[in-house]
Every structure is written in structure tokens, then in C-alpha cells.
């Protein structure tokens, strides 16, 4: 008895201290976030400042794949590496839609294309130097692309679009093995300031590829392969003062950077620091208490921090941005009964998407999706082929489709989810509950995320054999255009024996042709329009059930200046603009 009373006493003391911690300095009437209001950084620059100096400090709960611009796939590193690596083109550091605009960076202008969109020429700006004073030449850009795309034995992390699109890309062995002076023949450098790319197919989005950190020049003489990350040669306003693998880095001003050669960087802070592997809750607490400038990962605060910032004094410091990704369900066209369009449409009409969103965490997690392209991608067109009131589904229409499909009483199928993604498991459970109302009985099977594409959902033979009819999927684009988003997931050519991302196994000649035609079209406006049309074709086919457009709940500390969300980099803050009053 006595013990119990004492335990209760101690418990209440602990509960009190926890409560005090949770309140987090209540009673302070500071408005927070400078001139910011909730979501202010979505379409404007919050705490605009032109004051030089200060230190911007980033923290990240994880480690990057690599800070080497030639060895990374991570969106936030693409954004961050612009501080020390100038790419041929980049995204305009600006608020709102303007941030999706591609502008020349290392190059004087955007790429000059041949009429067939197969040859792209860039002219480099004069006077750009590496941190050691050596002038940057077109050969350094060529070399950077060669090492990043063709040397997986040393640099395996980055995407390989250049390898796929450049002529002879499948034959070239990479600069570490092929020691010939000319290297990859389809990148020509007629003089020190000109670089010409010869592609094997028309590709009008090439200016977007040129924004990849892989086009940041690397001097061959200083390349040490996988170890280059420890001695990156900067061309941007900052260079590495220190770098500790897996732990962090400090960047200071690069004296060789000449603002006259660089119209897009203001480079206000004197110093930029980044720390890796910081406990995620600590990152959030440091943002709340203004000890750090931004969470480098840019995917938003932790679930346990959300209640603290959704309302109350911190609410004005939050930005709920589109993460450039759509969560959807792929209905496999080779698994009965989804080989029948009416059974697919039954799911489209029957699903209560609002209940699914609620189960996944509600509005902080995203908005209900009606299209495959998310709103922050060039080419997004708003439409809803299967519109129902409040996105709650339409049982009558769903039942009518079931009848046409020859399954008036419904059917049974299997739905997949990645076991280590709680939101996806919650999604599957909510879908299961929702579709039960129209007689579709779902069995949920979970798979580990790490092998989801290589061993399970991405392997058609496995999917067919195990009759996996509904496959959970989430997708974000490698570059923010309709092509960058759609090509890997709806093009028939993207169906692979394993590791594929076209989980519907959608191979519609009309869709394939529309993609090929549009990417060969050098008229940007016509191209942008085409992406929306292709999106409609996919929804008409009914094999993709869009569920939510993902969102990040970002938090900007009071000392952060020039804060704006960039849609070009998955809805995180723009790190070229970011400054600090500290």
C-alpha cells in the first residue's frame, strides 16, 4: 500500500515535469517567425533581409547519401550542394511558382537545342573559378558528368539519366577505366567555354537535367573517386572548411567566387554549418527554441511535434508545403479482376479517400489527390475523373461498375503495404474498411520497404503468382515536370523484370506515344499542356487510384531570414536564399 502511494507521488512529479517540458516556455507572447504568418513562406519570402553576415546552421536526423554533387540522389543535397557547386542551370531562388523556373547558372543562358531536341549546347560564363583559383572549363563539366554517371564502382548513389540519354552511354566505361583523352564522345567540348550534348533520342527537358548537381564541375586532377567528398572543390560562394563523414560539415566563404559571375546567389551568411544524425526530436526542439536555422531534410516536423505547432504561438511559424509526391494505389492490369476496367472503376468510385487521409494523419499529411501529378509539378492540371461529394466515394456508382464487371457481389483481392511505413499500413487498413462497403474484401500483405521493388511489388512474376491486385505506391519526381514524374511510372518501357516502378504494368501504346511525342516537343507550353492530358489518360484507364498529395509541415525559427519554400526541391526551404539573423 505504502509503496503504491509513493509510486503515485513520484509519477505525478514526473508527469508535472513532462508537462512543463511540453508547454515549452508558455506565456511568451512573441509573435514568432518575424513577419511570418502561417503558410507565408509558400508564396512569399518570409523575414526578407539583405543583411550580410551570420551563420546558417542546419541539422538533419539522418546522413546524406553523399555531399559529393556527383554521388547523390537526395533532393535536399541537390538543394544544399548549390552552395558549393554551380550547375549549368538551376532553379530560380524565388517564392511560389516562380521557384519552378529553370535559370542559367554556370552557363550564360539556357541550353540551345537543335530542332529535333537531340543536341544541346551550353556556353559557360567567363570568369568562374574553382576555390584554388583555377578557371572552370567545359572539360570540368564533362568530367563531372562522366564520373557521376559512369563509375558506379566508386560513385553509385546518383541517378543515371545522362547515361540513359547520351549517345553511346551504354558503351562508355567511365573515366576511371577508360583513360582515353576524349572520354565519352557524345559530350563535346569544342572550346573551354562550350559544351555540347548529343542525345540518342529527343529530350526537350534537358535544361532540367542540367540542374542536377552532377553538372557541377569537378577538376579531374583533384578527383579522388569515392574520397572526393572529403575535399570537394567549390565553385559556389562557400567552400568546405571542414567535413566529417557522417557527422557534419562547416562551410565558409570561397574567396574565388565572384558575385559578378553569379546572378542567382546572394550569399548573405558568412558561414553555413550542417550537423548529421541529430535526434529527430532534438532537431524539432532546436527549431522551436531557435537554436538551429533549418532541418536540412526538409520533410517536416516529427509526428510528436505536430500537436505543438499546429495551433498556438508556433502555428505562425509553420508552412504546410506540397512535397512533390503522390501516394497512390496501383491496380495491376495482369491480376484478375483488375484486368477488367469496370472492376478498376468500381474501386475508383467506391473508395472513401477522405477516410483514408484521416487514417494517415489528416491534413498535416496531405490533401486528397484526384490526379497522379501533384500540384507542385510543371504540367499539373486540376481535374477529377471520379468526383464524389467530399471525396467520400459513391457506393451506387461503384456497385454499377461491379455489375458491369460481372462481379455484382464484389470480389476478394490482396493489397500490399510497406511494413516499416506506418502511414502506408494505415492507408491499407482504411482502404480495406472503405471498400468492404461495396463487397470488395481485401487481405493486406506487408513487405519491407528496402526490398519492396527489388523483390516484391516491383517484380511482375511475383505479383502475378501471388495475385497482388492492389499495390501501395508513392512517387516523387526527379525533376519537377510531368515527364520527370510520369515516365518512370506509366511508360510501358518502365516495366522491368525486377526493380520497376510501373506497378500497374500499364503499357498503353497511346500513353507511351504521348510521352515520347511530348518530350520531343521543344515548345515548352505545348509540353506542359501534354503532361496534364497524359495524366487524364492514365486516370481514364483507371489503373491508378490517387490517394493523397503529400505535404511537409515545415517549421521556420524566428532567426531564419529569406525563408521560402521551393517547389523545385520537394517542398523544402530554398537553401540558396536562407539566411540567419544570428
Amino acid at each position, binding site marked *: 500500500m505504502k509503496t503504491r502511494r509513493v509510486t503515485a507521488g513520484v509519477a505525478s512529479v514526473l508527469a508535472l515535469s513532462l508537462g512543463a*517540458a511540453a508547454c*515549452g516556455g508558455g506565456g511568451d507572447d512573441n509573435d514568432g517567425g518575424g513577419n511570418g504568418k502561417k503558410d507565408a513562406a509558400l508564396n512569399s519570402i518570409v523575414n526578407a533581409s539583405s543583411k550580410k553576415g551570420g551563420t546558417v546552421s542546419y541539422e538533419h536526423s539522418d546522413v546524406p547519401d553523399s555531399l559529393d554533387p556527383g554521388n547523390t540522389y537526395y533532393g535536399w543535397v541537390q538543394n544544399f550542394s548549390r552552395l558549393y557547386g554551380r550547375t549549368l542551370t538551376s532553379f530560380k531562388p524565388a517564392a511560389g511558382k516562380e521557384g519552378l523556373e529553370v535559370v542559367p547558372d554556370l552557363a550564360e543562358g539556357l541550353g540551345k537545342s537543335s530542332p529535333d531536341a537531340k543536341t544541346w549546347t551550353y556556353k559557360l560564363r567567363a570568369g568562374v573559378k574553382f576555390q584554388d583559383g583555377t578557371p572552370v572549363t567545359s572539360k570540368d563539366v564533362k568530367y563531372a558528368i562522366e564520373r557521376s554517371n559512369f563509375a558506379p564502382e566508386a560513385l553509385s548513389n546518383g*541517378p543515371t539519366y545522362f547515361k540513359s540519354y547520351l549517345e553511346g552511354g551504354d558503351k562508355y566505361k567511365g573515366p576511371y577505366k577508360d583513360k582515353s583523352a576524349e572520354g565519352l564522345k557524345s559530350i563535346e567540348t569544342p572550346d573551354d567555354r562550350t559544351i555540347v550534348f548529343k542525345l540518342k533520342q529527343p529530350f526537350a527537358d534537358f535544361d532540367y537535367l542540367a540542374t542536377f548537381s552532377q553538372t557541377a564541375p569537378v577538376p579531374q586532377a583533384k578527383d579522388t573517386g569515392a574520397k*572526393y567528398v572529403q575535399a570537394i572543390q567549390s565553385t559556389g560562394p562557400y567552400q568546405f572548411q571542414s567535413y566529417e563523414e557522417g557527422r557534419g560539415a562547416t562551410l565558409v566563404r570561397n574567396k574565388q567566387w565572384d558575385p559578378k559571375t553569379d546572378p542567382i546567389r546572394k550569399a548573405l551568411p558568412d558561414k553555413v554549418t550542417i550537423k548529421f544524425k541529430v535526434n529527430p526530436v532534438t532537431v524539432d526542439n532546436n527549431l522551436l527554441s531557435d537554436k538551429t536555422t533549418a532541418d536540412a531534410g526538409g520533410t517536416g516536423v516529427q509526428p510528436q511535434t505536430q500537436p505543438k505547432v499546429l495551433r498556438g504561438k508556433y502555428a505562425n511559424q509553420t508552412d504546410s508545403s506540397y512535397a512533390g509526391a503522390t501516394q497512390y494505389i496501383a491496380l495491376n492490369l495482369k491480376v484478375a479482376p483488375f484486368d477488367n476496367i469496370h472492376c478498376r472503376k468500381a474501386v475508383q468510385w467506391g473508395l472513401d479517400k477522405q477516410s483514408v487521409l484521416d487514417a494517415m494523419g489528416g491534413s498535416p499529411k496531405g490533401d486528397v489527390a484526384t490526379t497522379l501529378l501533384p500540384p507542385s509539378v510543371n504540367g499539373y492540371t486540376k481535374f477529377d475523373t471520379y468526383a464524389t461529394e467530399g471525396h467520400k466515394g459513391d457506393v451506387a456508382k461503384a456497385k454499377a461498375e461491379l455489375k458491369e464487371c460481372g462481379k455484382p457481389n464484389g470480389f476478394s483481392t490482396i493489397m500490399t503495404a510497406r511494413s516499416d511505413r506506418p502511414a502506408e499500413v494505415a492507408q491499407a487498413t482504411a482502404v480495406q474498411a472503405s471498400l468492404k462497403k461495396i463487397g470488395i474484401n481485401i487481405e493486406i500483405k506487408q513487405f519491407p520497404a528496402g526490398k519492396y521493388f527489388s523483390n516484391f511489388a516491383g517484380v511482375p512474376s511475383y505479383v502475378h503468382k501471388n495475385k497482388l491486385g492492389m499495390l501501395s505506391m508513392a512517387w516523387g519526381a526527379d525533376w519537377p515536370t510531368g515527364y520527370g514524374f510520369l515516365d518512370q511510372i506509366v511508360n510501358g518501357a518502365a516495366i522491368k523484370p525486377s526493380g520497376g516502378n510501373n506497378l500497374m504494368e500499364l503499357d498503353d501504346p497511346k500513353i507511351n506515344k504521348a510521352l515520347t511525342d511530348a518530350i520531343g516537343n521543344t515548345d515548352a507550353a505545348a509540353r506542359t499542356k501534354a503532361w496534364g492530358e497524359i495524366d487524364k489518360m492514365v486516370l481514364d484507364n483507371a489503373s491508378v487510384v490517387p490517394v493523397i498529395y503529400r505535404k511537409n509541415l515545415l517549421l521556420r525559427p524566428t532567426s531564419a531570414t529569406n525563408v521560402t519554400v521551393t517547389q523545385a526541391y520537394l517542398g523544402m526551404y530554398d537553401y540558396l536564399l536562407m539566411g540567419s539573423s544570428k
Partner: protein
Amino acid sequence: MAAADDPAAATRGRTAVAAYILRRVMGAVLLLLVVSAVTFAIFFLVPRLGGQTADQLATQYVGKDANPESVAAIKKNLGLDQPVYEQYWNFLKGLVVGADYTFGPDATHCGAPCFGYSFKSHIEVWPQLEQRIPVSFSLAVGAAVIWLVTGVTTGVISALRKGRPIDRVSMFIALAGVSLPIFFTGQILLALFVYEIPVWDSIDYVPFTENPAEWAWHLMLPWVSLAFLFSALYARLTRAGMLETMSEDYIRTARAKGLTETTVVAKHGLRSALTPIVTIFGMDFGTLVGTAVLTETVFSLQGIGAYSVQAIKDNDLPIVMGVTLVAAFFIVLCNLIVDLVYAAIDPRVRYS
């Protein structure tokens, strides 16, 4: 007594000690070999028995865009195409003399002890471990000092005041300490002293060699939260040991001889009660260096425990191997030291 009077006996004694140390060191090396063999087998042999091919293993190195050619190249570069026993031999050889790999324009030498290269970053494993060992070691050392002092003191006081309020209170706190997980106490300390009343601006690791005062100051919270857990355990152990010892006949004899209570407690009681504590301490300390995962994670310290978690997440086998061996090394080393210290504090132990 004989040793002090007889030089020959002293020499014999020293030889015995030397032989004992040598035997124990050799035993330790053998043990490490066994650990490395078992770990190696778990990662490189068991998957093969389970049907995984060298190609699949090599694919993990190559990354997303694996084509047969690059897989073959990496397989050759890392020797994954060789039989497993040969790979193990090469691994051991690398530990002693280093190895050469090509991950860039030129071949680079991975100096001894070469634990190989990270699958993910293609960076040598050992320099990474070398940077992280001081962090884990610092964490363990400071926490150990705190928990030994507070734990043993509390235990002794509790035992001497058995049943009194001070005993009840301290044993209750000890129970709480044993029961509260580090991610709870750690978070509470962080919330209170970093965010609520910011005594500390942040918890960072400052190398001891750079500034010992800053080193200690910045590690104080991790030390305290880790020590809370252990000192509770040690208090309970000491109390139990002391209670038993203090009821022994020789304590009564010592008191009867008219020795002061302090001498009785410190010299006769505590010394004997400490023996099992030292054994456990050696194990705890050695284990802690490699496994303070929770503390390192809560306080964002970049020690080898947190590093191993990341490596396991990334399926980065060479790092996991490296951490396992380093952790095993510390456990073996600490046990060795304990065995040597044992004899010094307990006259009943002989070097045999």
C-alpha cells in the same frame, strides 16, 4: 608475507604474474578471432547458405543502377567471387597489414587495421571508427565514475542504515533508476536543462584533447542519465553485498578488536563486498563502450553505438563487422583488466 622476505619467491611471483598476463592476452586474442569468425560467418556465409549469391551481395555495393558489368567489377574488386574462407583470410590479413582497393581513379591503400570499405559511402571503415571510439569511450568513462561513486556510496549507506528512511528512499530511487529507460530520463533532462532552463545551450562532443573542461561540461547530461541507470543497479548490488559481509564473523572480530567503525566498514566490509562489483563493472564498462546506443541517440552523440545502428539500417556489413569487433575488443580488454585488478583487491585470488 613470504614474498616480502624471500627474493626468490618474489621473482617466482613476478614470473607467475607475467605468465598469467601472457596467457590471458593470448586467450583474449583467440577469443577475438572466434568473434570475428562467427561475425564473418553470419554476414558472409549464412546468406550464401540461404541461397544469396555473390552477385546479390555485390549489387548492394553498386547501388540503384546495377548492371551486370559493374556488379562483376565490384565482385572482383572486393574479392566476393572468392570462396568464403579465402575472404575471411583476406579480411584478417587486412586487419594486420592493410589492403588495396580501387574506388576512383587510382588504387588506394587501406592501412592496417583495414576493416574494409563502407558499402554505402565507399569510405574506409577504420578512420570512421577511430573518430567515434573517443566519443563512446568518453561517454562510458564519465558515466562510470559517476555511477561508481554514487552507486557504491548509496549502497554502503543503505546497508549501514538498513530499514531506516534513508535506506528506503535511496532504494526506491534506485528502483526507479533501474526501471526508467534512458530515452525517458535523457529526454526529461534535455527538456528541462536545454530547452526549459537552458543551462546547456546544446549537447555537443568536444574532444578531451581540445578542452577538458568543455568536454566534461558538455557530456554532463548524458553522463548523468546513463549513470542514473547504472548507479541504481550498483547501489542495490553494493547494499546486498555489504549486508552479507557486515554480518560475517570476521567483522564482529574486527569490531571486538576495537577498530574504529570507519576502518571496519572501509577496510574489512567494503573491500570484500567490492569484489563482485568490480567483476560486473568490468563487463558493464566494456559492453557500454560499444552499446550505449540509446544514450548516443537521445543526445545525438556520434559514438560507435549510434554508428552501428545506422550501419544496420543501411545493411552496411563492413561497418557492422567493424563495430562488432571493436565492441568485442573492449569487452575482452575490460575483462582482462578486471581479472588483473581482482587479485589486487582480493587476497584470496591467486594467479593460477
